[in-house]
């Protein structure tokens, strides 16, 4: 066997590591480890000069392995793998010792402990790298079709960018129509553009683009495969309307006798029929029958829609269909749920009639909405003379969500403007901080100050109808501590609008699991890197855009949609992608054919070959989790890059200095040592 010649590179990371870990001592110590040919410390290993150090040593000293003691492998492993490769060393003969995130940054102000820990991690890495074997990544082709999940403004834009670039897109939407929350809004801030006017052309384009297959009223059930080659099972729910025949004329819903409250599109303020199209500009234009409220499905008789349909498109027997699609990449743009203000009982939503949510108020402002755009109280006729806008309902509140929902301040200002424009009522905003950070937002805030919207700084304690003072009778009283003057105040108003938080979809964790990605503590999908990779996820080929990643406004959602599309286009443009060869491999010579591994594999990647009486791993299906490796009673399954020997060696390595440890005995030997 070839003699081990390992290079150890201890990074200062400026002050990040060197401020806490005695890097020079660590490098000197590492040089004395058996098998280490050179140890260096350097200010920034990831700089081009740092990488050149590694490359030069590989070539001049014939290194057989490289240990870079620096940041997390999730940060710079690819960087140093490339450096190794450039110098002719197999990229998998590199090991990162994470002495920044796992040592210097968590043991600050304790140089001794941080240094000791850095030594143990490096020792483990050195032992491990000696056991690593050169591997070659698998090259796989990228299917140029993409699935976009979620047809809100982020998803629509992602789909259009990809389709315009000439690639097939499947746009999957859970609701009967695409459009998302933006389709419910009346005006957008700060320009006061009509929301529908700017969105519907995009919706139309997405619905009619030759490269976009729109799968509305559909949900993703299962995702298999990996970047470049996903197989996605989609369930298309039964519309009970034959879209081949339907012209969207509207006779059916005009004749439908079942009227129900529209909880989705009209946010509970309006009505719809059992067969319905969510809104006039819906894409696709076809209606759906809601079985829950349809008289025929509930009582077995009616079929009015069928009788009046001029093309015979109604199909009561239609069943859900399953569609299996092959795509190379996936963009998730699944949006958000509105916080239910019933969870803050002191604000009285659901109990006090004239307390509205922000979404209800959006519908009320909309000319096509339930009040034809008139701002009125719950009775439907009385115009309010005074309106309170309560900020941060469910946001910035440790009882509900600690985060800021990012858009409510601007939406509240927009409401202030529109209320004044339409009714002339007094509007008072109850805020904690006004956050108007994007382009032209602060200007809009100043405009509202000039328009004499009133601002009271303080979190609202209670909204009540119990009058205590003269002038409060028949009003809603907003009780608040005005923190600018340090006094309790009671403000009587006719109407209260609660700026409800944006929350992760209630099934976000399930969706994340289906697509193999993670969620933040709040429940939004986790990006690969919060600064440098905000639309990618930990799973290659799965990207995120819009509010599913975190609260944001329309321009940011649109940008992320386009950014996700750009990332997908990069992969499509490459045509192939290298996949980590972290895979299980069965030594068929020694396999006893016991089949224990067969059932353990979550991907059914292991098949039993009855002729040979052995099991075999299908590398295309295997994802390298290693469950079978740990379970094999004969220890003949190799977990590539995480082999039994490499982990055992790493255990010995990290325990080099313990009471029982026999990882290393102190070895005195001459090695070149360079500190820089």
């Amino acid at each position, binding site marked *: 066997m070839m003699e081990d010649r390992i290079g150890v590179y201890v990074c200062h990371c400026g002050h990040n590591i060197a401020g806490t870990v005695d890097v020079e001592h660590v490098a000197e110590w590492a040089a004395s480890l058996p098998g280490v040919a050179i140890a260096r410390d350097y200010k920034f290993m990831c700089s081009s000069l740092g990488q050149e150090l590694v490359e030069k040593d590989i070539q001049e000293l014939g290194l057989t392995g490289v240990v870079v003691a620096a940041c997390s492998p999730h940060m710079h492993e690819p960087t140093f793998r490339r450096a190794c490769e450039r110098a002719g060393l197999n990229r998998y003969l590199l090991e990162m010792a994470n002495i920044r995130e796992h040592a210097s940054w*968590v043991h600050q102000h304790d140089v001794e402990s941080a240094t000791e820990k850095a030594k143990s991690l490096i020792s483990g890495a050195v032992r491990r790298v000696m056991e690593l074997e050169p591997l070659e990544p698998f090259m796989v082709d990228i299917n140029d079709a993409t699935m976009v999940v979620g047809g809100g403004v982020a998803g629509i834009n992602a789909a259009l960018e990809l389709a315009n670039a000439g690639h097939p897109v499947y746009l999957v939407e859970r609701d009967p129509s695409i459009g998302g929350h933006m389709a419910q809004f009346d005006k957008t801030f700060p320009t006061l553009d009509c929301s529908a006017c700017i969105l519907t052309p995009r919706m139309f384009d997405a619905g009619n683009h030759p490269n976009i297959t729109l799968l509305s009223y559909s949900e993703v059930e299962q995702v298999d495969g990996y970047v470049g080659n996903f197989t996605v099972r989609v369930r298309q729910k039964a519309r009970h309307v034959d879209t081949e025949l339907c012209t969207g004329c509207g006779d059916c819903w005009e004749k439908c006798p079942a009227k129900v409250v529209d909880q989705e599109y009209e946010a509970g303020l309006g009505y719809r029929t059992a067969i319905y199209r969510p809104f006039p500009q819906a894409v696709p234009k076809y209606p759906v029958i809601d079985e829950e409220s349809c008289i025929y499905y509930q009582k077995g008789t009616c079929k009015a829609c069928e009788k009046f349909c001029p093309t015979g498109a109604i199909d009561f027997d239609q069943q859900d269909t399953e569609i299996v699609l092959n795509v190379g990449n996936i963009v998730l743009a699944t949006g958000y749920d509105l916080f239910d203000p019933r969870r803050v009982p002191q604000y009285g939503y659901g109990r006090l009639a004239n307390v509205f949510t922000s979404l209800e108020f959006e519908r009320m402002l909309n000319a096509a909405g339930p009040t034809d755009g008139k701002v009125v109280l719950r009775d439907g006729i009385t115009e309010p003379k005074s309106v309170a806008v309560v900020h941060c309902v469910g946001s910035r509140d440790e009882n509900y969500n600690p985060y800021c929902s990012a858009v409510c301040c601007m939406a509240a200002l927009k409401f202030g403007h529109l209320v004044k424009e339409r009714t002339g009522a007094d509007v008072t905003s109850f805020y904690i901080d006004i956050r108007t950070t994007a382009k032209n937002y602060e200007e809009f805030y100043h405009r509202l100050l000039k328009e004499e919207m009133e601002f009271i700084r303080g979190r609202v304690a209670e909204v009540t109808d119990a009058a205590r003072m003269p002038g409060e009778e028949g009003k809603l009283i907003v009780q608040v501590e005005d923190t600018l003057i340090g006094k309790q105040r009671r403000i009587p108003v006719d109407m209260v609008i609660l700026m409800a938080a944006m929350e992760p979809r209630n099934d976000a964790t399930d969706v994340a699991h289906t697509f193999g990605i993670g969620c933040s503590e709040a429940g939004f999908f986790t990006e690969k890197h919060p600064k440098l990779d905000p639309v990618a996820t930990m*799973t290659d080929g799965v990207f995120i855009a819009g509010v599913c990643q975190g609260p944001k406004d329309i321009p940011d959602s649109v940008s992320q949609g386009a950014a996700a599309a750009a990332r997908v286009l990069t992969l499509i443009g490459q045509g192939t992608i290298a996949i980590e060869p972290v895979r299980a491999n069965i030594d068929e010579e020694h396999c006893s054919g016991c089949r224990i591994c067969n059932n353990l594999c979550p991907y059914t990647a292991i098949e039993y070959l009855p002729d040979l009486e052995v099991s075999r791993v299908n590398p295309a299906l295997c994802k390298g989790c*290693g469950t079978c490796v740990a379970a094999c009673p004969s220890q003949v399954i190799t*977990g590539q890059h995480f082999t039994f020997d490499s*982990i055992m060696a790493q255990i010995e390595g990290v325990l080099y200095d313990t009471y029982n440890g026999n*990882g290393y005995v102190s070895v005195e030997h001459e090695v070149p040592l360079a500190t820089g």
Partner: protein
Amino acid sequence: MAKRDYSLDNPAWGDRRPVIVGFLCNWCSYRAADLAGTSRMGYPATLRDIRIMCTGRLDPTFVIKALSEGADGVIVMGCHPGQCHYDVGNFKAMRRMALLRRTLAQLGVHPDRVQLAWASAAQGTLFTETILNMTNAIARLGPLEWRDTVADIAPSTPPLPDEAHEPEVIHG
């Protein structure tokens, strides 16, 4: 974090500190540890972590190896049940760990020395709390000193032949 005197927890520590080997899954717990670092959350310098792709990869031998090499405790951390990156690997770890803890208990190793815990990639705080709790538990138990205790009472087994994988070939 200021240096802690573990002999206050258990005098047997002297001036030593507990050594805990952590097996962290690549997708959740290792990233939780990264997040703890990025957010500068401190935790005791007792953990020496090893990255594995999934807790399902955890061969119980690794735990025994770590204890016999001088670790006072082993913590295995993965994704929360139901959120495993590989679907069900953490459930496999759960089964193996339960059996392993029982086996180790028979050898006189306190079950608290070998623990299984979860932290998602976003739970840096939970990660640090878990390491702190594990450290406290081990601190109270004192050093394991496998060589003098467990290794002595365990029945000695003959050393394995060098080529353990090579089956004996019997002709005839």
